[in-house]
Every structure is written in C-alpha cells, then in structure tokens.
C-alpha cells in the first residue's frame, strides 16, 4: 500500500525549476532513498513532502489524504535535518517532548512515558538532562531521531542525517538506523548524495537529476540495470565505463573489466586492447586507468581488479582485456536511455 503518493510535482524558485515533474509512490514501511548530486532538487522534494515549501504544481497525499495545501503540522510527518536542529536552549528531554507538547493532546504523564520509551529505543536515557551542546555528533543524531519518531509519524523524512558524522561513525550509524527502521517499521524517506549510503540502506532508491527522478528501483536494479548513462556513471565508484560506438554507447562496470586469460565461455565476451597509463592501489582493490583501442584517447577506461589477483599487466603496453557479454550494457547515443543489446 502506498503511504505517500506524489504526482506531477513541480516547484519553481522564480524561473528556475528545482523539482520538475516528479511522480513517486512510497510503500508502507519501506525505506526509500532519494539519491542525487547536490542541486538536483532532492532536498526541495523532501521539503515539499514535509510542507515547508508549497509546490508550484502537482499533488502530495499522505496516508490517503491530500495534504498539498496543508501546513507541516497537519501532515503527520517528522523530519531530521542535516544539522539535527536541536533546540539549543532546551534539555534533551524537552527537545524530545516538544512535538508532543505542540500536539496538545497528551497529559504530562503521557508525554513523560512516551519520551522515556523513545529514549529507550535509541539508548539515550542517560542523556535526557543534558543540553545539546554537551552531546557528541552521534548522540545529537540519536536525539534528533528520537524527537522525530516520538510522535509516531506516518512518514519519517531524513535529510542527509549522517553527513555530519565522521567516516567511522557513519558506518555504525547507518547500521543502527537501518535496524531501528526495520524494528519500528516506520516509512522512511532518506535523502543523500552518498551512493554508498543509498546502496547500503535503501529498500528502493530513486535517483534524481535536475529536478527529475531518472530511475527508481532496488539497489541491485539501479546498479546492474541502470536505466540511462547518468545513473550508470553516478552509481559505483568509479562509475560505469562508457565507450562511444558510433550510433550507440557501450557500457561496462570497472569490476567486470578483466585481463583475458585465453579462456572462452559459451556466452562469449568482448575483447579489448587496453593500454594502462596509471595504477592506483586501494588496498583491497587495484584501479587501472587507461585507454582502449577503438575509442578516443580522451575516454578513460577504468578497471577494478581485486588485489588478490596477480596482475599480469604492463604499464604503457597493450594488454588483452575482456568483458563478459552479460555485463555489457547498451545505451541510445542521443537520449542516453538503455537499449537492447546489439552486436558489438
């Protein structure tokens, strides 16, 4: 069942469209990641869902009700901002209690009970008497999450909530966030520009560019069956290699680009003469940068080889590389959209 239904949504700031015709339907209990480069309109889309911005066109309905013209407080949404936006003059307890008090339908005892329950879920009972400035980044994030979930919203909106944490903490916070979301079964929309976060967290991912959703699907679909060249190159680090082949574009991922060892399988493969110009050792993997014959000199082609594999590669010389045919992707040259396989 769709809990959030967005149709034909547009938002223009002056002449500039930030969100340009988005249709999206978010299912009950899922974690949908909105992924895109900065300036693609993902935060605006989030603010439109929250009611902080009024759309120029289109409709939003939440839990079966059209909320397009309603203010945020009539929408049953909760939001965690990038900065966490904790009220600095209130204790953690008061921060968490704030949305409950604002609803005005709970007694003092009920509020106390709900706050303690929510704090228990996130393991921050001991912090309730502190002020936000006495908390670490990870603790602040939990308090913000706690304040968002305490009013049991229909939808939880998260705007890059992990970007203020340092890299190590981010991995554990991601894990924690996912377990928390699964446990409460709370429908969540998560905005990020970080594809690793998106791949790791999302039940589904919506990839945005220039105010439009370019593709929506599970992380596997998005990654392995990218709908167009933008999605193909935006996902993966590094992204998909694209080769100009006259009237179409040929694509393959760096990890599928191997040295060929003479063996052939029944599916066939594409062979390339690969001239490596630079080697980058990343520890677990090694990245090779180079060019292939039959493509222009400017097209850098990257190969990702596990470090466990002994590299029979010579820098500067031509090497035999290959991609198995099932890993080849074809895109229309003009529109960039995915097309059927062609003979290569």
């Amino acid at each position: 069942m769709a809990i959030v239904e967005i149709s034909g949504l547009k938002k223009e700031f002056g002449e500039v469209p930030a969100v340009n015709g988005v249709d999206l339907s978010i299912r009950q209990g899922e974690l949908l990641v909105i992924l895109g480069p900065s300036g693609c309109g993902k935060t605006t889309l989030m603010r439109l869902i929250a009611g902080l911005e009024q759309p120029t066109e289109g409709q939003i309905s939440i839990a079966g009700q059209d909320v397009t013209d309603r203010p945020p407080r009539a929408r049953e949404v909760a939001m965690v901002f990038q900065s966490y936006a904790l009220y600095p003059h209130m204790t953690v307890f008061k921060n968490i209690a704030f949305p409950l008090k604002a609803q005005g339908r709970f007694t003092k005892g009920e509020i106390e009970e709900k706050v303690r329950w929510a704090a228990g879920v996130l393991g921050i009972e001991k912090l309730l008497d502190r002020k936000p400035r006495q908390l670490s980044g990870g603790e602040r994030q939990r308090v913000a999450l706690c304040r968002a979930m305490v009013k049991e919203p229909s939808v939880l909106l998260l705007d890059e909530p992990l970007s203020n944490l340092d890299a190590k903490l981010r991995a554990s916070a991601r894990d924690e966030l996912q377990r928390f979301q699964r446990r409460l079964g709370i429908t969540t929309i998560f905005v990020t520009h970080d594809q690793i976060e998106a791949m790791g967290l999302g039940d589904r991912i919506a990839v945005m560019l220039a105010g439009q959703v370019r593709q929506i699907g599970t992380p596997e679909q998005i990654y392995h069956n990218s709908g167009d060249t933008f999605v193909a190159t935006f996902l993966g680090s590094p992204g998909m290699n694209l080769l100009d082949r006259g009237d179409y574009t040929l694509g393959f991922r760096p990890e599928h680009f191997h040295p060929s060892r003479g063996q052939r399988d029944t599916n066939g493969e594409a062979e390339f003469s690969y001239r490596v110009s630079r080697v980058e050792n990343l520890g677990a993997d090694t990245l090779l940068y180079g060019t292939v014959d039959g493509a222009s000199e400017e097209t850098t082609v990257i190969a990702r080889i596990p470090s466990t594999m002994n590299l029979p590669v010579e820098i500067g010389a031509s090497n035999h590389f290959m991609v198995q045919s099932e890993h080849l992707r074809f895109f229309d040259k003009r529109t960039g959209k995915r097309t059927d396989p062609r003979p290569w």
Partner: protein
Amino acid sequence: MVSPNPRFRYLTDRERVLGPLMLAPAVLYIIGLVGFPFLLSIAFSLSDVTVGDTSLDFVGLQNFRSIVRAPEFRRGLVNTVGFTLVAQLIILVLANILALVLSQNFRGKWLARTLLILPWATPVALGTLGWLWLLDSKFSPIDWVLVQLGLLGPNTLLGPGNHMNFLAREQLAMASVVAVQVWRLLPLATVILSAGLSSIDQELLDQAQVDGASFWRTLFQVKLPLIAPIMSISLLFSFIFIFSDLVVVFVLTRGGPVYYTMVLPVWAYFKGITGGSLAEGAAIALFLFPVLMAAAILILRTARRMEVA
C-alpha cells in the same frame, strides 16, 4: 624607510607593545572624560562648594541628607525609575512586534525600515523639540486631529475643552515623557532584536514547523529564548539611556507641571548649575551611579549565563 636601530624596528610586531599602545588613547580618554569628573563629583558631593565659593570644605554626608528630605528628590527618584520601567516594557513589546514584522518579506520593507530608524538618526534635543510642538497647549496638531475625529471638544469623550494640554496635566505630562522616550529608543531596540531574529538558524524554525508548533509556541518557546541574550543587551542600553537622560524632560516639561515629571538628572542640573549649588548637584547625580552600576552588572551577567546555557 628602514629604522636605524634594529632593536626598535619590530617593536610594533610585538603584541605586548602594540596592544597597550593601541589601547592608550581610549584609556586616556576615559580617564580624562569619565574618571576625573567622577572623582571630582564625589569630592564635590562631600563638600560645600558652590558656584560662588569654589573652596572645597569637607561637610560629610550633609548634602545627601538635605537632598533626600526634599520632595523633588523623592518624586524625581520615583519618576526616574517609573519612566524607565514603563518605557522599557513598552519598548520591549513594540520592538519585538516590529522586529517580527521586519523579518517578513513585504513590499515597501526598505521604506518601513528607513522610517523606523529616523527617530534614532535625529538628535534627541531636536526630536524632543518636535514633540514639544506636537504636544503644545494651543497649537497641538494632535488636539486638532482629536477634535476632527469627534473625540475632543464639548460633549465628547475627552472633555469640553478644545485642548488636551498634554504637558500641563500631571498624568498626561508623565505619559508624554514616557511616549517620547519610547519613540526615540524603539529604533535601537528593534534593530538589535532584528539582528537577533535573523541570526536564528532557519533549520531550527523549519524544525519547529515540522514539530507542529503554532506561531505562538514558536515565538515563546523557540524564538524568544534564543534571542534572550541579545534582548538583555538591548534592555541594558535602553535602561541606561532612559535612566540617565536629561534632554527629554528638560526640553519637554522642565520637570513640570510643578515638579511632577522631575527626574534626577534634570534636578541635578537645576540644583547644581542653574541653582549654583555644585555640591548638592553632585550628590544628586551620584545617586544614579549605584543603580546604573547594579543594572549593568545584573544584565551583563544574565546575558552571559544565557549564552553559556
């Protein structure tokens, strides 16, 4: 040009030298224009000095005893405190409203802002002269407007006469003084509060909206607590300005009718300069000092505590 003696060449690069050097003019200025007169007034207040006899003969606290007995003193003290508190309260409410209005976007905002700042840009004495005319017993345009509105004149709400006589009636004269103080200090308070409001992180206000807070809840539980430190600075300024102000009462009423609008700075001037009793004038002026000092310390400490919290 290279200094011949290398020992002095980098003298101004040293903070221990440069710091005191740069501060020196300000320190000298304060000692000369504030410190010295302050000590002199303490000496005057304990002596029998007058304009005619400038020898300082020590008389102890006699000046203080005699001024405390005068009815003008008690009235002046009550008025000084009363005018300050009432004006302060009105300024606080109005400045908050104005600052909230100016934080919105609307057509003609720059015009509203310019008009708002005008009273502050006008010299106090000139502004007060303007008010003197506005409140004149015969030619007051306010009277004329009230008459035209049917509020003033025979058989109307405000009485049979055609004139309010703002400055000749005890209550109205007091209200007039408060009104002019509010008029001249409102711009400063509004500008300070506007700065405070615009420094609030927009995400916090968005958060309050998503949390379901109404306008009033956002105002009283988020905005005002966040600008409380800056608000107390604004309070401190207007408190000191009103409490120690001589000009408004001097120009508007000269303490009258009788001495009903008398404030201590004006009385100190009348006693010490007009009346020639420098000793008593100094004693009256010194009465203001502990109050101002205490207020300054109190408000600055409150501001500090709120900032830390």
